[in-house]
């Protein structure tokens, strides 16, 4: 795996917007003075007349997007996750969510892997904030292919969609044959001893962990859940029944994200032990993304360790 191709999903987002715009002229893109970073700049460069910069005013941007959507036109709006989901939470809820408008929020720089900018920019709460809004679809793609597919699917979808993209370049896991569907999890690796359910950049880590566990004689199933809401209950219940224990892994608070959603399903339908890996109840800090991920236990080694412990206590 020495020459693995790595692409940041924010890059995939910008590329997907451009590809989409080449086919459809019924949408516009809004950003809040971060086009260079969110990569809506790729779209802006190709279609400058379809790009509107709202300046550093995220609340206004989100409500403007809602207004555009009321007229039957499609619209993407982007900022960092911290500001799109955090700063403008109430606008997302009341301007977009309550009237159930088709706005796609493309939020980049999510999670601890923002790196050096530190805690004010490391949004580990967005999945929780967005999931709790009625009717909101929440997607956290795992790689370049899934990110692009999510953008195309969100364009076709009806109703509000939040898509989370990362800053850090991460390995490409899928290829052209991948068929993405909103609300469907994907079994990435077969196994019947225990299940690791991961999302976003943790999917690659989970796959690496599963390889390591194999050496210890543990066959871990690996599932990628990119749609956090509505969550794929079937794939989770099946895993709970067939493997008897689940580890979840996400670059997000352990409160209110993938781990919580999986736990809800498991507790209601097929109670088995679940161990959540994510950011514990704390803020992040500055540092290189890769080092931070290791510090916070968001890495293959820690997933393998936690999975092994849970397996041994099963």
């Amino acid at each position, binding site marked *: 795996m020495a020459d693995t191709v790595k692409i940041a999903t924010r890059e995939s987002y910008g590329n997907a917007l451009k590809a989409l715009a080449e086919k459809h002229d019924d949408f516009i893109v809004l950003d809040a003075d971060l086009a260079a970073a969110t990569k809506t700049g790729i779209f802006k460069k190709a279609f400058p007349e379809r790009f509107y910069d709202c*300046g550093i005013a995220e609340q206004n941007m989100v*409500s403007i997007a809602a*207004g555009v959507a009321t*007229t*039957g036109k499609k*619209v993407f709006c982007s900022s960092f996750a911290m500001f799109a989901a955090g700063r403008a939470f109430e606008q997302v809820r009341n*301007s977009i969510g309550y009237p159930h408008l088709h706005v796609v929020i493309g939020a980049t720089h999510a999670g601890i892997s923002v790196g050096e900018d530190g805690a004010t920019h490391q949004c580990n709460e967005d999945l929780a904030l967005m999931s709790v809004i009625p009717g909101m679809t929440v997607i956290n793609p795992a790689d370049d292919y899934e990110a692009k597919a999510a953008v195309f699917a969100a364009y076709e979808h009806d109703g509000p969609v939040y898509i989370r993209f990362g800053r850090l370049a991460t390995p490409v896991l899928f290829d052209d044959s991948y068929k993405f569907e909103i609300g469907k999890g994907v079994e990435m690796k077969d196994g019947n001893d225990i299940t690791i359910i991961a999302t976003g950049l943790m999917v690659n880590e989970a796959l690496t962990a599963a390889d390591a566990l194999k050496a210890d004689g543990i066959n871990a199933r690996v599932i990628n859940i990119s749609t956090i809401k509505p969550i794929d209950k079937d794939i989770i219940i099946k895993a709970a029944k067939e493997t008897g224990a689940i580890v979840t892994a996400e670059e997000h608070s352990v409160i209110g994200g993938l781990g919580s959603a999986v736990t809800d399903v498991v507790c209601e339908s097929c109670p088995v032990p679940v161990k959540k890996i994510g950011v514990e109840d704390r803020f992040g800090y500055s540092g290189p993304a890769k080092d931070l991920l290791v510090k916070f236990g968001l890495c293959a080694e820690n997933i393998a360790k936690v999975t092994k412990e849970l397996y041994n206590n099963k």
Partner: protein
Amino acid sequence: MKADAKKELEIIACKVRMGVIESVHAAKSGHPGGSLSSSDILTYLYFNKLNVDPKNPDMPERDRFVLSKGHIAPGLYSVLAQKGFFPVEDLKTLRHIGSFLQGHPDKKGTPGVDMSSGSLGQGISCAVGMALSAKHFGNNYNVYALLGDGECEEGQVWEAAMFAANKKLDNLVAIVDFNGLQIDGTLDEVNSPAPLDEKFKAFGWNVITIDGHNFDEIDEAFNKASSKNGKPTAIIAKTVKGKGVSFMENQVGWHGSAPNDEQYEIAMQELNAALAKLQ
């Protein structure tokens, strides 16, 4: 404005006020003060300005109206009912369980409501989005938003004002119901956003200040706003909160409370007398 046209609007406005009192009384809660101060402006918009069709509320080319100060839903519902979007009788279901007339406007549930609102400051941005869409996709409709003067304390209002001017949205008109009162007191007692005319001017808008209860002045202002010059227009309408019901006028306490049965009777008597005088 011609005398008979003006009289007709005054009659409708009086009926709109009756609908406000009826509905808020039936709901035992709601916001009469700001509904009454906006009744003349709402009446003018729906009966003299907006290209809307109650038979076809979703007509794509219709003018848009956003009630940014969503709490005066009783005023909006009453004018929509007068216009024929739904029966006047339905106003009495305001705020009741199962009613399509929610405490604050619900775009999905009420015919004629272009945007859900209630969280102050957001509606003007939504109106800006509609105006942007019309400009971008080449549609000819205009967009109107009604704000409260207290609402202008929200930072988002000024984010929206900045954007609308920067993007030259001259298909947008924001009306501020300048009644001088909010919830905790007068604007001055709370945190006055005045002078609003100078502020909107500084943000790059056309500004027109009028008496919000005088249909001649209202008419003139909206006609001026229609002559597009590359700038959005703000109409600062000086009004009396609670206008038309003597004991509610200029009383901060009538912002968000309903009349009891006795007060209801007096209010309706006053409005009926005013109507009789007009007819």
